[in-house]
Every structure is written in C-alpha cells, then in structure tokens.
C-alpha cells in the first residue's frame, strides 16, 4: 500500500492500525473466497482490481472529485435516488455495512439484538475504518425498518451531516405523495449542498447514466439464465455490490464487457460449473461487501446461485426510470414512479415481492430458493414465512436461513445448505 494512501487515510481521520487490520482480513477473505474460484470470466479482473483498491484508488478519485467542487453523498439504501444526486453534481456511494467491526463499542449504543447490517454501519463509524463515510459531505439515512429508523437517531450524534429521508410503508396514493414530497425535499437539500441547481438537461443526463448502469446489470442477469452458468453467483453478487461504489460510466462499460465475454462462453457452452448443477435463487436481506458468507457456502457445496432477489441484486436494480420527461417536474415524477415499485419488506402488504420471487425462479430456471434472513431483521424474517408458504404451494423447495456476519454458525449453515442441495438433486 503506497504512502500516499496512508496520508490520505490519516487526513480522513481513519484509525490506521484498525484499518490495516480490516484490509488484511478483507484481502485474505477475497483471496480465499474469490480468487480460489475456477474458470472465472476474464472480465472479473476489473472487479478484482476495484476490490483491491476499494479503500485506495476509489477514495482518491472521490477526493479528487471533491477538489473540483463536487460533493459526495453516502447512503445505506436503494431508496436514495442516484439520479437526483448526479444531476446536482454530486456522487452517490454506498456506505460500508457488511462486516462486524468494533462490536463492543457498537453495543454501547445499540441493543445486542440489532441486525448485523445496522451494527456494522455503526462499527465502521466508531472504529474509524470507512473512508467513504469520512469522505461524505452528506450521509443519508432513510426511514425503512424500525431498527434503522431508531439507529439514525443515535448515528446523528456521531456524524455532523446526517440527512434523514422519510419513506412510505404502504403502496397507496398517499404513500406515493409522501415519496414525491420527500424526493422534492431531498432535491432541495442536495442542491443546497452542491450549490448547483438541477436542470432538465442535467436530470435527463443523470437518468440516462443510471439507467445505463441498470441496463448493464439487467443484461448480466439475463445471461445467468444459461446452463451451464457462465458466471458464478459470487462474482455476479460482487458486480451488484460494486454497483454502489464505482464510477457509474466506468461500471457500465465494465459490466457490458463481461457480458460480451459471457455471450461467447454461452455460445461455446462453457460455464463455471458443469451443466445441470443445481440452480439456486437467493432471496431476502441485502448482502453488502464483504458479506459473501452464504454464496460461498452454497457454491462450495455443489450448487450455483443464478439470481439475487435482494437490494444488492434485482430488487435494487429492477425497472428503469422513464426517460421521456421534458421538465424537471416530469422527470422527478418518473423517478418517484420507478422507486415506488421497489418491493422492500418494509411495505405492507407486499405481494409484489412474492410475484417477483416466483418470476425469478421461472426466469433463471432455479430449482430452489434460499431465503436469506439476517438475524433480528423483522421485516424479512416475517416475510420469509409467507415466501416459504407461497413457494411450497407451487412445489418449489425453499430453505429459510437466519444468520449474521459471524462465522460461528458456518458449520451448521453448511449442513443445512448441503442437505437442501441434496433435496434438489
């Protein structure tokens, strides 16, 4: 690691010793989980590079952007509209929430029975190890689940620039009006932060940029329908994770490049696993970097993951924003329409999610569904029961797992997953 990064991290206020430890663990995990995979697409080289520089070069790029007057906005949720951020000359980044860190300090502020994702977001702040968080000019918290809502009240005392966005919980006209009002308020807040008013032109360009990014991911997803699978679930998850960090245009280009390669693989019937390998859809809670626990277990137990019904996956990227609007107002409305369709488990009722899971099972020819629930994540754990019932009615095998970021249950989890895969054969 170059000295330049070390002084950059020091300037950001990171705890260098703790940060070194984090990068050490991350590098080892990446080596063991990712680089040990066989027959990976060459295009994954780009994502390997991104991951190796995730706290280095990418942070330097963001700081360089800041030098030119651009602002950085950090988010924990797919409801924060990237289009609005980009149109006001800011960059949106996902904030770290995928690994346990500084847990003792976290548990002084949050109850033990808080989900791993929320605890992690606090851990990265308290442990001073997330350069994204420390580079951000604005941190957006959003009122999704009760855990996050209440946690933001505490986070507010740890950071100076928290902006809380309210979100509807019912898919009604009133719900959509609330989302519209909140996106208008967010737009003003972002404009105020950057000093750059959003114009019809800048917003249109932003919508196109984000749509291009989503379209590339849609293309990648659709190539995963092939048997043998041309890309592992681990690698596809990584692409979906990098979606939240990378420069949008470069990300789009890199994903499309991988897709070109995968098309050739499919034509040659070349895959990462043999034909007829059991195909699994993972559905449920988001899996943020570096949470690769479940896919690693699944793909080293004889199955391949062919889709993620998740915020870091299809729930987050489904649907493009309509590009036909001419005025800012029309385009904001189109953005509201697009995001209001996200079938997050905080909505009640949430039947669209059940439909989408079944559509994905059919589209990706998956033989079974693993419902991934983070311990103490009430919305998704509650829905896991209805998901299981709905799938059983259609004779689609479903395994509900409930876990966290620790490795203490890896053995039990592996037994369950292996038994589930035996069930599919």
């Amino acid at each position: 690691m170059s000295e330049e990064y070390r002084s950059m991290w020091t300037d950001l206020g990171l705890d260098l010793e703790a940060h070194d430890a984090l990068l050490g663990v991350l590098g080892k995990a990446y080596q063991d989980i990712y680089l040990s995979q066989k027959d990976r697409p060459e295009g994954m080289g780009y994502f390997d590079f991104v991951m190796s520089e995730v706290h280095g070069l990418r942070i330097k790029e963001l700081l360089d952007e800041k030098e030119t007057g651009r602002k950085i906005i950090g988010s924990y949720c797919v409801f924060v509209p990237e289009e609005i951020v980009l149109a006001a000359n800011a960059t949106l980044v996902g904030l770290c929430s995928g690994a346990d860190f500084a847990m003792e300090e976290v548990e002084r502020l949050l109850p033990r029975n808080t989900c791993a994702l929320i605890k992690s977001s606090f851990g990265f702040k308290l442990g001073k190890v997330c350069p994204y968080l420390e580079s951000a000019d604005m941190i957006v918290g959003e009122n999704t689940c009760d855990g996050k809502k209440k946690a933001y009240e505490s986070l507010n005392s740890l950071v100076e620039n928290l902006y809380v966005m309210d979100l509807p919980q019912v898919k009604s006209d009133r719900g959509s009006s609330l989302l519209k009002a909140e996106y208008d308020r967010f737009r003003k807040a972002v404009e105020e932060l950057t000093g750059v008013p959003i114009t019809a032109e800048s917003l249109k360009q932003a919508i196109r940029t984000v749509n291009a990014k989503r379209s590339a991911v849609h293309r990648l997803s659709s190539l995963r329908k092939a048997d043998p699978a041309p890309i592992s679930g681990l690698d596809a998850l990584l692409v979906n994770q990098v979606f939240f960090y990378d420069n949008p245009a470069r990300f789009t280009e890199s994903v499309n490049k991988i897709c070109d390669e995968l098309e050739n693989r499919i034509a040659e019937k070349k895959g990462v696993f043999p034909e007829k390998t059991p195909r699994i859809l993972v559905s449920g809670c988001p899996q943020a970097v570096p949470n690769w626990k479940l896919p690693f277990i699944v793909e080293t137990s004889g199955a391949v993951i062919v889709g993620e019904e998740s915020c870091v996956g299809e729930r987050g990227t489904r649907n493009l924003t309509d590009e036909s609007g001419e005025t800012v107002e029309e385009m904001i409305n189109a953005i509201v329409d697009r995001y209001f369709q996200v079938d997050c488990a905080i909505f009640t009722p949430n039947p669209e999610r059940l439909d989408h899971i079944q559509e994905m099972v059919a589209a990706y020819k998956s033989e079974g569904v693993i419902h991934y629930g983070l311990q103490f994540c009430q919305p998704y754990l509650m829905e896991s029961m209805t998901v299981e019932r709905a799938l059983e009615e259609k004779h689609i095998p479903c395994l509900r797992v409930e876990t966290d970021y620790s490795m203490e249950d890896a053995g039990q989890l592996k037994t369950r997953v292996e038994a589930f895969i035996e069930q599919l054969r």
Partner: protein
Amino acid sequence: MRFAGIDIGSRTIELVVVDEAGEIVCCLQADTGFDPMEEARKLTNGTDYDRIMATGYGRNLFEISFDAPTVTEIKAHARGARAYFPDARTVLDIGGQDSKAIRLFENGKVKKFEMNDRCAAGTGKFLEIMAKSLGFEIEDFGREALTAGKDLNISSMCTVFAESEVTSLIAKGESRQEIARGLHASVIRRAAGMINRVSSDGDIVFTGGVAKNPCMCTLLKEKLGRRIQVPDNPQFNGALGAALLVKE
C-alpha cells in the same frame, strides 16, 4: 461387497456395515473425543468393508482424511429410518449437539427439514448436563423422570439458565424426578415445534441416541397424539443410512 457408513457426531462416532442385501453385519460405537479422525481410524481399521460414506458434523474432515464420499445427516437419517419403517414420512432425530425434523416424500426423498439453532438447547447434550446436575446417570434419566406424577415447569431452554433454574428448584426441595420430567417436557416442546413445522399428521420415526430415552418417547406421543416408532439401536440410524446410501 460390504458397505460402511460412519456417523461422526459431536459426542460419539458410529460405524455400521451392511452386506449386499442391506442387512447389518456390524455396528460399532466410540466416543468422539478430541481427535475424531484418530477415533474414526481406530473404528475403521479393524473393520472389513469395500466402500464407506461419512455423515455427521465430522464428515468433511473424514472426506479429506479418508478420501470418501459424504452425505448430510438429514439425508442419512431419512434413509436409515426407511430401512426399518419403509413407509416413514416424518423423522425426528435428536443427537448430541443438534436436532432435526425431516419430512419425506412418499418415495423417501427429503421434502423439507428443520434444524435447531446454534446452541445445545433441545439436544442430547442438554439432557446429559441436566441429568448430571440432578445426580442421575444419563441411562436412568428418562426412566426416573417417568416415575414422576407431574412435571415441574422449566421455562428456560438455554442450557446454562436451565441449570441454574434446576439448582434453585432443588434448593426449594422439589422432587428430582418431577424436575427431570419437566426438563424432558421442555425438550419435547421444542421438538414438537420443529415437527409441526414440517408435518401435521402420521407416524413419527424417532432416531438418534435420545430416542433411547423412554420419557422422551412417552412425552412426545402425549404431546403430539401421534404414533412414535423407534428403530432398534436408534443411535446407529445415521450411520446405517450412510451405509445404505453408499451401497445404492
């Protein structure tokens, strides 16, 4: 040809050998100890077989050390239960460190299963620790519990908390047998919950070392109102299943 199945559990290791007709020719058991592979080697060394398959939590270690195929405990227990009860559709296995309820299709394939969570609650280990704190031998624990006229309610499923609950009941002068029965009932409540999530009617095949405990069988029958079937030597069921699977 002879086929062996080895079940490397947290408490004990079982080895079963079957012949080409699937008849059991040999059953061996040893404590897992702190070096399971050494124990496994001792068991297999003196035994004559052509092919072997491993199951249980130590299966992956065995796979590496002995270059043998593996199967999960779920599939192994399902197969083993079918050897004794060809129509079995529901299997409850309670072993040393985990417990599971399995629903089978008519053809014997696993349809659905539930397993206990991370800790020892509701497993053989729980009963073992409780027997010790009440001063019973584990072999007598169930029989003693059955002599009680009623069960004292034990509210805690956590092994550590239940142990202190037991201590305070003893201090209050409550009958050891009634406390024992209460402890059995608390394990049964948990097992019944798992069974109900996978199947709502029909006979239940009860396997694993805990199935030898008569109080467990009685209370399970009372709780669910369903017939409980226990194979001979239920602790060998997983190893038997693995032996039959490698034969097939």
